[in-house]
């Protein structure tokens, strides 16, 4: 406990120090990043033991604000979420030291680090807080600090727009949480979590679903996500996408622990939400050609997978099937960790692409693997992992969720149909994700450069390479050590599923053996790869190995522009799902016998935004505008208002 509070203190102090040292970028960077790394180290040291069975500690101090107490506690659930927070924050901070140099002189780096460290601190507080007011305060701090990081380049209109969307979305989400926390404390009068009671739990669950879902990015509450993530500096996007949106998941889980035994339909709702977010998220990702936007939509997809896992878990709990509960919750939780790793990695990779090539427009890139080998390799690892392919970590968590769903299908008929949907959904998501990342990796890093930017790209420096490398190693480690990785979950699951620890242990054991085989398969796979590579070298030794141009069917003048682009690569799928995507094409068709110019461009605006929110907002605006005549400057009218109010009240109250 103390360690964590120290970590928070270090973060806050270093934030202030960085702000004060704003004059000199060097000092600000040193203070900010240094403070972040140190604090994260302290925090990890303090958090990990709790995960491995150290008792939960809590601290309950008086706090002189209405209903507020400084009540913090670190239990296994908090500790589990603290791992990615501290881990990724430290790596992103190191990355930032170099990445932020581009802003030097234009912006006060002191302010950036100020907000960055405060963001980390507020996330830590969110998972520690056990009092409604404290939680909400930390929650809003998290939203605001990240907002200021997103709008770092507020000189650009697009960035301002994005920031606005983000701010409004998170504020509206918080409104639901306000109501929820107050209602939870209604009977006891205190807002401490331990005194919460769950009268009409279903309403509270829905409030939590909307409130936390906005932060987590459930469809259709995700609109801020694809706007904000591209706008932010990449190491911040990594942090937001890797950890911050998971705070929504944390909040949901924490609320579930407060709400008592769930009815079955909660699970179905979560599965539905998960399927929508997952499938639509990956589809919209396919249609994007801005790398970070694409990644942002994949965050929506992965949040969907997590929700799917939690849904399966809830179904298990409510139907009294521990296997389902353990596998579902376990898979969901593990995917939280995994997504933090590979999504962080991918965003950092995107950052160094921007840093090296100066653009994120996929169709202008290409051939970067030659110029940025580190970035390319780590990005490939991330891509395989996020596609849920063995032997990396993405597969492990999805495997658990699959297993849970299959279990459910074999167990009970009434659970089978939704779980059937879950299986089909997961399979579809997996396939589409693979499609999307072969596109992203293939078009960005392989082939020939499609523009000057890409042709003159340069590799990032060490401070940016190492964090990516470490994250890649993390992805691989979790993949190969799967059986051991799921063990710590045994301590978390009883809390969220309400099952007895021994049941959980037993079921997790059952899940761990297959993972053992999976890991073995992974090792075998590596051995085979090595063997085959050696075999090929053997075979080719002493034979002619020539180099030439790519086979182009005898075309006279091949050029980089003849390559397949990201848009053309995704075109079959986007046309297949056109009704959902509503892609807009602007085509200037070639005309005449000797056409000069022709062009085709496609954009895929977010359907929820275009079809749902924009009409709603403009509608409200219209109504309000209609009422402006009230204030039209005639004093006679104004006095008339007074007279009428008076008369109405007199007649109403005395009559």
């Amino acid at each position, binding site marked *: 406990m103390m360690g964590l509070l120290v970590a928070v203190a270090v973060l806050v102090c270093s934030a202030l120090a960085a702000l004060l040292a704003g004059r000199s970028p060097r000092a600000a960077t040193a203070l900010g990043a240094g403070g972040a790394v140190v604090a994260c180290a302290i925090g990890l040291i303090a958090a990990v033991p709790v995960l491995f069975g150290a008792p939960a500690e809590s601290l309950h101090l008086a706090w002189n604000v209405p209903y507020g107490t400084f009540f913090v506690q670190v239990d296994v659930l908090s500790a589990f979420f603290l791992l990615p927070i501290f881990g990724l924050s430290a790596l992103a901070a190191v990355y930032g030291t170099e990445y932020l140099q581009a802003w030097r002189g234009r912006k006060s780096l002191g302010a950036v680090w100020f907000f960055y460290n405060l963001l980390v601190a507020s996330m830590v507080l969110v998972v520690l807080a056990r009092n409604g007011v404290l939680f909400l305060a930390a929650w809003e701090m998290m939203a605001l600090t990240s907002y200021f990081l997103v709008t770092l380049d507020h000189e650009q209109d697009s960035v301002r727009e994005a920031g606005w969307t983000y701010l409004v979305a998170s504020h509206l989400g918080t409104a639901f949480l306000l109501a929820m926390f107050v209602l939870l404390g209604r009977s006891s009068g205190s807002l401490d979590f331990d005194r919460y009671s769950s009268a009409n739990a279903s309403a509270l669950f829905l409030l939590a679903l909307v409130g936390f879902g906005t932060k987590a990015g459930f469809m259709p509450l995700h609109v801020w996500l694809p706007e904000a993530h591209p706008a932010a500096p990449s190491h911040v996007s990594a942090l937001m996408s890797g950890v911050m949106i998971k705070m929504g998941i944390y909040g949901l889980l924490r609320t579930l622990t407060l709400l008592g035994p769930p009815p079955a339909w909660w699970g179905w709702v979560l599965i539905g939400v998960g399927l929508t977010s997952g499938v639509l998220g990956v589809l919209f990702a396919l249609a994007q050609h801005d790398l970070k936007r694409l990644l942002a939509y994949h965050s929506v997809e992965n949040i969907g997978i997590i929700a799917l896992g939690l849904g399966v878990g809830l179904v298990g709990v409510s139907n009294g099937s521990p296997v389902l509960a353990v596998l579902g919750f376990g898979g969901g939780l593990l995917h939280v960790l995994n997504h933090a790793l590979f999504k962080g990695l991918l965003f950092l990779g995107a950052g160094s692409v921007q840093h090296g090539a100066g653009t994120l427009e996929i169709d202008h890139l290409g051939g970067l693997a030659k110029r940025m080998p580190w970035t390319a390799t780590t990005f490939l690892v991330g891509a395989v992992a996020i596609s849920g*392919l063995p032997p990396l970590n993405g597969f492990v968590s999805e495997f658990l969720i699959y297993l849970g769903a299959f279990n459910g299908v074999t167990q009970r008929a009434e659970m089978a149909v939704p779980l059937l949907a879950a299986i089909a959904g997961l399979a*579809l998501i997996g396939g589409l994700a693979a499609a999307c*990342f072969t596109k992203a990796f*293939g078009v960005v890093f392989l082939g020939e450069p499609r523009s000057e930017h890409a042709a003159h790209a340069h590799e990032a420096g060490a401070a940016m390479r190492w964090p990516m490398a470490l994250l890649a190693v993390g992805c691989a480690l979790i993949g190969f050590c799967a059986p051991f990785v799921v063990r710590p979950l045994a301590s978390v699951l009883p809390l969220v599923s309400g099952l007895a620890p021994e049941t959980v242990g037993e079921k997790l054991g059952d899940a761990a053996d297959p993972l053992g085989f999976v890991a073995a398969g992974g090792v075998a*796979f590596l051995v085979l790869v090595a063997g085959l590579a050696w075999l090929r070298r053997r075979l*080719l030794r002493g034979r002619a190995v020539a*180099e030439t141009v790519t086979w182009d069917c005898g075309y006279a003048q091949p050029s980089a522009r003849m390559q*397949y682009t990201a848009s*053309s*690569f995704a075109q079959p799928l986007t046309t297949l799902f056109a009704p959902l995507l509503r892609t807009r094409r602007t085509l200037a068709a070639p005309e005449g016998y000797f056409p000069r110019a022709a062009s085709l461009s496609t954009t895929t605006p977010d359907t929820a935004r275009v079809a749902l929110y924009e009409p709603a907002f403009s509608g409200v605006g219209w109504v309000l505008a209609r009422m402006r005549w009230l204030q039209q400057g005639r004093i006679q009218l104004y006095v008339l208002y007074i007279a009428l109010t008076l008369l109405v009240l007199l007649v109403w109250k005395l009559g």
Partner: protein
Amino acid sequence: MQATSLIQPVLALVLSPLMFGVINRTKAWFAGRRGPPVLQAYYDLSKLLRKGAVYSRTTTWVFRAGPIVGLAAVLVATVLVPLGGEPAPLAFTGDLILLACVLGLMRFFTVTAALDTGSSFEGMGASREVTFSALAEPALLLGLAAMARLTGSLSLSGMSTAMALETWRQAGPVLALVTAALMVVLLAENARLPVDDPNTHLELTMIHEVMALDHCGPDLAFILYGAALKLWVLAALLVGLMLPVRTGNAWLDIGAGLGAMFAVAVAVGVVESSMARLRLLRVPQLLVGAGALAALALILTLK
């Protein structure tokens, strides 16, 4: 783990190229030709393994990694599928998921290797490959889910051991539906007609072949062999799950399994000689249809 389990991957390694031979013979017979020798695939492999290599200047290590990873992945898959009622060497709860994902891994690297050449044709093939497989995957997993529900087991070997004539009698329609679905998946995943025409010579229309345009020598051999193994794996899946021959003698069962394998090959040949290639836009409908069949099967098992 008894010998009958260990023999299966060996059979796969040795006999898989023979499947091509059988298919081509069947087609030739339908077309009234003599056709290539049954062992043609072996000849090709040995020839390719003896050749040197030419690489495109555009490519990176990813291109070279493609065939190796693909082959390694499918080799892992071969130890997962049971044949003729005998458990596979590597059998555990949920191995069916690993199977599906391992094939996915193979695809992932084949596709990236194709994109590495920067050739528009290979890009085209890659794009189609991912499109169709993304649609084939749900069909495969739903079919397996139906089998899981029917047999109550979550491992391929478990399912195949639980399979018996009795099962066919009780749940014939379900099994038929799943068989149909898996057959479609097999055709699609192995780039056979009516999804893809392995004998076409027009790059524009190819899917799988075009992705291998720039590969040559040992790489191409790996790819060819990998394709053969993939066909074997999926056929073995079909046979292992559906063939209800359980004599009690393992060797007999495996023999029967082998027979069924080549029967599948013949069936593929028949399909290829009797059907025309679908227009690319129609293929998704076929695959979604397969998925629907599998889902229907699963729903039938619920009552």
